[in-house]
């Protein structure tokens, strides 16, 4: 009988050996495959319900994770969401992530490779895992000022940046939205919010249109033409350019006009200064036709067009100069030279181009993140200005700056002037076509910097789809206010 008892005991122990084995399998060998299972929402819970690091502006949290009493232990909360939606992006358990929330996700969750030691320390100290904080380069006052400049219901974007460091001082676009709606833990509410938000005309949930939107740049593109001309050696600051009104092309009926209301029509030759001050079209079209498509494309690329690898840290949409895609005919190249046809630029691209001119031809990598800190406030990384590329020579940059100053002093951007400060600027009006009531709608642009002799701030504004008067009113005067605010004038 005792032998049978021993045998039974062996059976019982064998059953337990199997259990030890199956637990080892599940909790050791199969861990990776179970964690990677698409039906496993625990990893999702870890990300979405964890203590994610805050996003800060001037030390104040614009996005933070607050404890809840539910199974999902933390709720992402946005303070002043409309003002910052374009930068933070959204953070949703059901709809994904965008903006800084997406681009800085590894730091915010604390799962980046360099946070390994933090995690180990947290395991041993028994602290709740906590992500790192991300402080933005944004100045809250300028951000608010810029945001309020775009009237509600009007499409528009403004970028304010430091040309020497590439730091973004303000970046706004409208229409904006409440990111809290998508951060809810209630799936139905999030889906409903998502459905209604995507229906808002002109909205972009995946980052501010200041870096995700593309617009015809119109006359601000003439800065590229000017740089190309001077760089080619065929032109100098005293060159006299042809200024026909309109420009004709051999063998076809198409003609390229000058701006009807300006002073361009009064002379058929123009200096660079005159052409820029009055934003004449045909002198720049003739430069492009003279230099050819390749030279134009090369110069556009040197200012950052056709580059899809700029991260600030979210990816900046690549602005396009179509020269690299097939041969343009003469009218096409002429139209491209004045920022029409298939030329498209993001407001940030225009700001970067302007910053390159302001910074002696050196284009700095744009950056939105000032510092990343651990929960115990140790700085992990902080902004180090990086040169992205040399867009043009210091001499050419200085020359263009001079002409841009005269655009404000004597030309059509006079409203951007700031008393006591030299402002350099260029405006643009890209025609989009007539609306139902017969009014011509344009993309109204402003880009410029100040002070011209030692640039501290670049402002680029686009108001797409407005009539000429509205465009004029919403660009240069607002730029003036932004210059004053940043420069404390």
């Amino acid at each position, binding site marked *: *009988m005792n032998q049978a008892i*021993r045998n039974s005991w062996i059976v019982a122990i064998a059953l*337990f050996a199997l*259990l030890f084995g199956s637990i080892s399998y599940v909790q050791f060998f199969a861990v990776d495959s179970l964690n990677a299972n698409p*039906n496993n929402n*625990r*990893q999702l819970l870890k990300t979405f319900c964890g203590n994610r690091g805050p996003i800060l502006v001037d030390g104040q949290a614009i996005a933070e994770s607050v404890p809840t009493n*539910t199974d999902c232990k933390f709720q992402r909360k946005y303070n002043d969401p409309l003002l910052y939606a374009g930068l933070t992006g959204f953070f949703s358990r059901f709809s994904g992530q965008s903006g800084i929330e997406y681009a800085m996700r590894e730091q915010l969750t604390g799962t980046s490779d360099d946070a390994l030691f933090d995690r180990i320390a947290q395991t041993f100290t028994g602290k709740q895992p906590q992500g790192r904080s991300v402080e933005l380069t944004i100045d809250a006052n300028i951000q608010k000022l810029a945001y309020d400049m775009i009237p509600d219901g009007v499409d528009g974007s403004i970028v304010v940046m430091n040309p020497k460091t590439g730091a973004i001082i303000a970046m706004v676009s409208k229409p904006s939205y409440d990111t809290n709606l998508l951060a809810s833990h209630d799936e139905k509410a999030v889906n409903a919010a998502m459905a209604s938000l995507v229906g808002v005309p002109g909205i972009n949930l995946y980052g501010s249109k200041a870096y995700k939107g593309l617009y015809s740049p119109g006359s601000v593109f003439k800065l590229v033409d000017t740089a190309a001309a001077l760089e080619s050696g065929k032109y100098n600051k005293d060159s006299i350019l042809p200024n026909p009104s309109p420009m004709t092309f051999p063998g076809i009926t198409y003609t390229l006009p000058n701006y009807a209301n300006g002073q361009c029509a009064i002379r058929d030759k123009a200096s660079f200064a005159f052409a820029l001050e009055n934003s004449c079209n045909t002198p720049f079209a003739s430069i492009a036709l003279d230099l050819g498509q390749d030279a134009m494309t090369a110069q556009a690329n040197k200012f950052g067009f056709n580059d899809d690898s700029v991260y600030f840290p979210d990816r900046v949409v690549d602005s396009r100069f179509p020269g690299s895609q097939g041969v343009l005919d003469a009218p096409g190249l002429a139209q491209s030279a004045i920022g029409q046809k298939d030329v498209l630029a993001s407001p940030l691209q225009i700001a970067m181009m302007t910053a390159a001119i302001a910074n002696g031809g050196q284009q700095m990598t744009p950056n939105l993140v000032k510092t990343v800190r651990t929960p115990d406030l140790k700085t992990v990384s902080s902004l180090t200005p990086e040169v992205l590329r040399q867009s043009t020579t210091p001499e050419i940059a200085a020359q263009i700056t001079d002409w841009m100053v005269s655009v404000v002093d004597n030309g059509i951007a006079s409203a951007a002037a700031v008393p006591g400060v030299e402002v350099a600027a260029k405006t643009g009006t890209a025609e989009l076509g007539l609306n139902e009531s017969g009014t011509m709608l344009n993309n109204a642009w402003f880009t410029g910097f100040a002070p011209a002799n030692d640039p501290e701030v670049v402002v680029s504004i686009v108001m797409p789809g407005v009539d000429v008067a509205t465009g004029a009113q919403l660009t240069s005067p607002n730029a003036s206010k932004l210059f004053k605010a940043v420069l404390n004038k």
Partner: protein
Amino acid sequence: MSQLLTVAKPRRNTELLLLILALSLATMANALVNLNLGRTFDNDFYTQIAILAVLSIGFHIALRIKAKYADPVILPVVVALNGIGLAVIHRLDITSGDTAGQRQWMWTSLAVVAAIAVIWFLRDHRILRRYTYISLLASVVLLVLPLVPGISAGNVNGATVWIAIGPFTFQPGEIAKITLAIFFAGYLSSNRDLILLAGKKIGKLQLPRARDLAPMIVAWLASVGVLVFQRDLGSSILFFGLFMVMIYVATSRISWILIGLALIAVGGVAAYQIFPHVTRRIDVWVNALDPEYIGAAGGSFQVVEGLFGLANGGLIGTGFGQGSPDTVPLANSDMIIASIGEELGLVGLFAVLSLYTLFISRGFRAALGTRDAFGKLLAVGLSFAVALQCFIIIGGVTRLIPLTGLTTPFLAAGGSSLLANWIIVALILKISDAARRPIDVSNTPEPSASGPQEHDTKLEVTKP
């Protein structure tokens, strides 16, 4: 047979020391839950720990008085398991808002008091032999109760195993485990001579006579009945396994095991063919990770969610309060192993399994040591039942076998299970007391330093 040498010492002080360790473990586990989930150490915490301490020490004192040679390891191991269970249930209550913890404390108190009563009033485990057929009757009644209209709690989570009287619900099947073990032990110890004597021999294999097969067939039919009428696959396997191990130990004949396995095979295949809920169980087990089965009603969501939890815990676990065990259905009862595994990790589960292994081995040790066949059979039956129950539910949770609803002894939330298992503890302790007590014909109270320990009874002679 080898002689088992046991120094006849009461070892009650060892038990006290281990008990203090087990109580510290329970206290620390509960404290960690409170700390990690931001709970204050309110009166409840101190009251509950005090209650557990008083109950355990009370049990210990009862053993000192009534069963001073009882195994010193069993009580501390069980207190540790029960304490871990209470902490985990409390932890799950905090995030789910349930009050299962309160009920578990109440049932723990009741169960320990019942176990103390068994120690106190049951002078000798052999007395139970007198109730062999009453136990059979009790078992039948207990198994039929959940099917009686009026007191049946109906179909709960797919099985009809609950009764409801007023606000109280109870799973009589848990108690039936004990009464069945008593019946089998009584019946087999009385009839084993008869069963052993006759039978054809085929080669080395001695077959039982057909008439001796009757109890086996009855047990098999009862198990099938549980499966059919209560839809409780887990209990069905448990009862049949209990009977098989007991008849094997009673007869030492492999033939019984083979017949038993054959019956399981027949029953299993038939059940798979006939009963949709069994077919479904197996399909869900095989295809558990298939998204279609995860999403389906009655699909693999529960077991897969448990596996995800276990994987989330990994080697060392997330720590109390930092996993999401409450996303698993029945996290504090059927799936409590997944909850423990997620937050305490593989390390924690290995510790829990080791405690079970220790408890079960001590039960078998008591069976080896005791001198009467009834006691041996009862101790083996009860210990093996606990082992098999652990295997069925933990194996189910880890997807070693199909998941069937059984409680995890001492850990899972559930009063009936606690009560039944604590009574099993009391019975095994009582048998171990008999096993380790020095034989003393003169009835002197002092233990002799080296008494004869193991008397393989005369029944051993009949072993083929």
